[in-house]
């Protein structure tokens, strides 16, 4: 699934054929699976299949003259189904995106602001860096902050921006603090020293910004002694595992859901409060398709007494993106101006059709996106969006 990081570091459209990824691109059979599965394929002048053929014919410039790649939401669907195993989302599409952004006279305003904010404040919403750890005061369970208490720690919990600032994200933070404490995990956070990991998809838009955030976070992480990083944001997981590695970062990084699996028995014994809900789970693109964690979230949900898990039509490898990846989080207005239907709106209809009470998620982008989509669908009182960690915490009696 993952292209060779060493090989693709610094690769350009001109040098791509020197890599094994370039050799894969040469084997494309133009079957169109990538286009058929692309959630925005019908809105792209040059969808992935055509991009490959244009590249092979030396016409990649014509692709980056259009906004086709602005519409890629980094959902990995094309890459997951490609019968030739071409790492489209990881390599080629990123390179075209980079060229597209360089040529655009102006960036869509929302995205421009998110990039500026990330550079200036270390988070895309433009919140003050000094408020990043404010949520800790609201946690019933203690959370150690390394800048105040810098001793060695086992798990460094990388909180990330949406969980740290966004009120519903802070709910997941409090849930994680509770779970970590109850499982007696030795953990700590960076607190106000943390800055956005530089979400993997966003990085490709702006290499300079990405490198600034990567350099910063690597230097801060270098100050402390810890064994592993755990994060609840699959985008941060990808940033660390696929981009930070290119800059020499070596520590193991886990998403909270697979991280909890070795504690399954202990955790299950603590899940004593039955939650009598029907739940449907949305596979996040980064956690599911990109990293292959399909069974783990379902196993944790099934560990909660009373929960009845139902599946949407599109699930696991065939899940439909919420539309938030690859910068999509900050392109809703732009997509709307192009008469594109929001992916979160499409996805929520499938969730509603299951008749579930709860839409369970494992990515912090999804809570605001789906809560909004529920409002659009007029369904906000009938279905609730919850992170899996919130449900675990809820089932865990104090």
């Amino acid at each position, binding site marked *: 699934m993952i292209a060779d990081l060493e090989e693709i570091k610094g690769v350009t459209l001109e040098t791509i054929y020197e890599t094994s990824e370039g050799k894969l691109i040469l084997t494309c*059979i*133009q*079957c*169109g*699976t*990538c*286009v*058929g*599965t692309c959630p925005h*394929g*019908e809105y792209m002048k040059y*969808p992935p*299949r*055509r991009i490959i053929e244009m590249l092979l014919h030396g016409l990649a410039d014509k692709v980056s003259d259009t906004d086709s790649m602005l519409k890629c939401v980094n959902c990995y669907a094309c890459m997951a*189904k*490609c*019968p*030739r*195993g071409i790492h489209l989302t990881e390599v080629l599409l990123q390179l075209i995106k980079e060229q597209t952004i360089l040529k655009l006279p102006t960036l869509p305003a929302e995205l421009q602001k998110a990039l500026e904010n990330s550079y200036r404040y270390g988070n895309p919403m433009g919140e003050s860096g000094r408020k990043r750890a404010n949520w800790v005061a609201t946690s019933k369970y203690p959370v150690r902050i390394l800048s105040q208490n810098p001793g060695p720690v086992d798990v460094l919990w990388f909180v990330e921006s949406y969980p740290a600032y966004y009120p519903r994200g802070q709910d997941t933070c409090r849930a994680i603090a509770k779970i970590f404490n109850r499982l007696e995990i030795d953990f700590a956070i960076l607190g106000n020293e943390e800055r956005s990991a530089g979400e993997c998809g966003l990085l490709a838009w702006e290499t300079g910004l990405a490198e600034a955030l990567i350099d910063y976070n690597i230097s801060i992480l270098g100050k402390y002694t810890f064994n592993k990083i755990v994060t609840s944001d699959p985008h941060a997981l990808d940033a660390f595992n696929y981009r930070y590695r290119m800059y020499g970062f070596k520590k193991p990084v886990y998403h909270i859901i697979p991280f909890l699996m070795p504690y399954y028995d202990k955790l299950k014994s603590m899940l004593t409060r039955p939650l009598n809900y029907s739940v449907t789970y949305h596979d996040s693109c980064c956690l599911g398709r990109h990293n292959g964690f399909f069974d783990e979230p379902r196993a944790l949900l099934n560990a909660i007494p009373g929960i009845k898990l139902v599946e949407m*039509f*599109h699930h*696991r*490898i*065939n899940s439909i993106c919420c539309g938030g990846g690859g910068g999509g989080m900050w392109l809703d207005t732009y997509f709307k101006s192009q008469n594109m239907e929001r992916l979160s709106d499409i996805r929520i*209809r499938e969730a509603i*059709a299951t008749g579930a009470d709860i839409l369970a998620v494992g990515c912090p982008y999804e809570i605001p996106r789906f809560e909004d989509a529920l409002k659009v669908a007029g369904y906000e009182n009938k279905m609730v969006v919850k992170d899996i960690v919130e449900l675990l915490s809820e089932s865990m009696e104090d």
Partner: protein
Amino acid sequence: MTNQGNNKDIRIGFYICHCGTNIASTVDVQKVVEFASKLPKVVVSRDYKYMCSDPGQELIQKDIKELGLNRIVVAACSPFLHEKTFRNASSQAGLNQFYFQMVNTREQNSWVHLDPYASTEKAIDLVRAAIYRVVYHKPLEQKRVPIHPDVLVVGGGIAGIHAALTLANAGKKVYLVEREPSIGGHMAMFDKTFPTLDCAACILTPKMTAVKNHPNITLWTYSEVIGVDGYVGNFKVKVRRKPRYINEDLCIGCLDCIEACVYKEGRFYDEFNLGLSKRKPVYIPFPQAVPLLVVIDPETCIQFKSGKCKQTCVEVCEPNAIDFTQKERIEEIEVGTIIIATGFQTFDPKKIPYYGYGTYPNVYTALEVERLINASGPTQGQIVLRDGTRPKSIAIIHCVGSRDKNTNQWCSRVCCLYSIKLAHLLKERTEAEIYNFYIDIRTPGKMMDEFFIRMKEEGIKFIRGRVADIYPDTSNGCCGKLVVKAEDTLVGEIIKVPVDMVVLSIGLEPRADAQEIRRMFNITCSTEGFYIERHPKLAPVNTFTDGIFLAGCCQGPKDIPDTVAQAGAAAAEALTLIDTGYIEIEPNTAFVLEDDCSGCKSCIPLCPYTAISFLEDKKKAFINEVLCKGCGTCVAACPSGSIVQNLFEDEEIFSEIVGVLNYTYHEEEV
């Protein structure tokens, strides 16, 4: 024979082949010739463009006669290809053929290396080893082993059936072993065959009946080969005959027992109809089954499960053929040659979850649709969905589990044409709108592309695009349809086609137990699991194991005409061996140096072929040359070093090692 004296007057001739540019473009043959000419006892050292050609062989023969050579070393291709050629050339010039030694400097050198310098050095090392070794060669005589005239054919699909009939018609006795209760294989499940659209059963069943009635064919169905010993000409094979719980000699195939079974309706998964219908615990796989013998399935039969059945089947059976006490039997047979025709299995489309097989009831595999179309199938040939309705629109998806790195990488070779055939048959029966979703249409072969064009004329739609997603249509007012989503790559649009039925054209893959079968017969298979032919072009039905041949899809996906052609070829290869009557084998047997043998007997239990006995009078071990297979176990085990193996004597091996490890020349050069 001349000039074959002792080591003192050894006269070696060395020859290296250019093999056109195959060797000479990588290995500096002049350098090797010059090097070899300086080695001790080498009288002549030459290179030639094609050593295997007549002039090349004559060169050797001329030198043997004129220069009095008594040892020959040729560096060329694999001994597998030309060792025999050069041995013959030597022997025609009066030299014992075992005074010849071959160096493989093509397959193991020039073809696998890029650096000419290193490749030349490697050639030199290998040549030195052979020249050092050949000095100690001894004159030997080849052994002849008789070929047992009986043949085993494994697998009773169209490949096995055709091979068995060909051999039997030539007067050879054939054992045809089939795992299922009936012969016929996959072909028996098909409705019609492309491109002629003749009915599969109409052309297959006469051959099945011919097998049953042929005096030269012993047909064992519901049986499996469980052990193979021996070697070409003399295989000993064990066959497990599973109990049908029916006395085969008594059963007359009246099928009254099926009618009388306490289950009034079929209740259990019907293997032949892929679960689209149900069968009883006592059943025949399909009406034209050969042999027409019923089978009792102990997994579902009440008598086996509880012992408390009314046994209505027994009551009704006039010949008294039902026997609940029947046990499996092991038959042991001796054959000289074996034809493997174990076929294929179809790809399990559940491995591509986004095609919805097993989730959406209206998604079928192509093989299921063959059964639906067939008059003897679960719906008597009516094309109806599981809810009993007739589909008005059908999508056929090509290449499912083929040409895909995530599943099987190879082209299944038949799915284009069988999809086109199914499209025709489905349109004929239902007048539905048919959409074929394809990546490429591949129609090689006689009348195949003409067939494709004819189907286009019939109005079947072809959409170039691999299907990316299948999901239920939930648009307003809709109703059980499935949406097939793909890019129509020729138009450049994403299309969503609502259909009533989806047919997955699943690919062909090796059987799940291909590896175990391969090990049992000691043949080779590629990484994907298809058995490897000895040469892809020139020995397409031979294996690397003498006397074992391949036919049909166990060697790779192919259609019925190619399968039958291959089965005929495999039968011809077996006939060649049988009618020759014997095979010459390497004289690589071991023998005991009686003076040195202490009579400790440690070699005797180690011999896998029970070739060693103890001479009580002499108190020495004795190796039966006929039974010895040259495995070398006793040679290595003998504590007194008194067992020697022809072609692998200590001084031959040690001098070869000295030769290959002698870097003196290399150092001088650098």
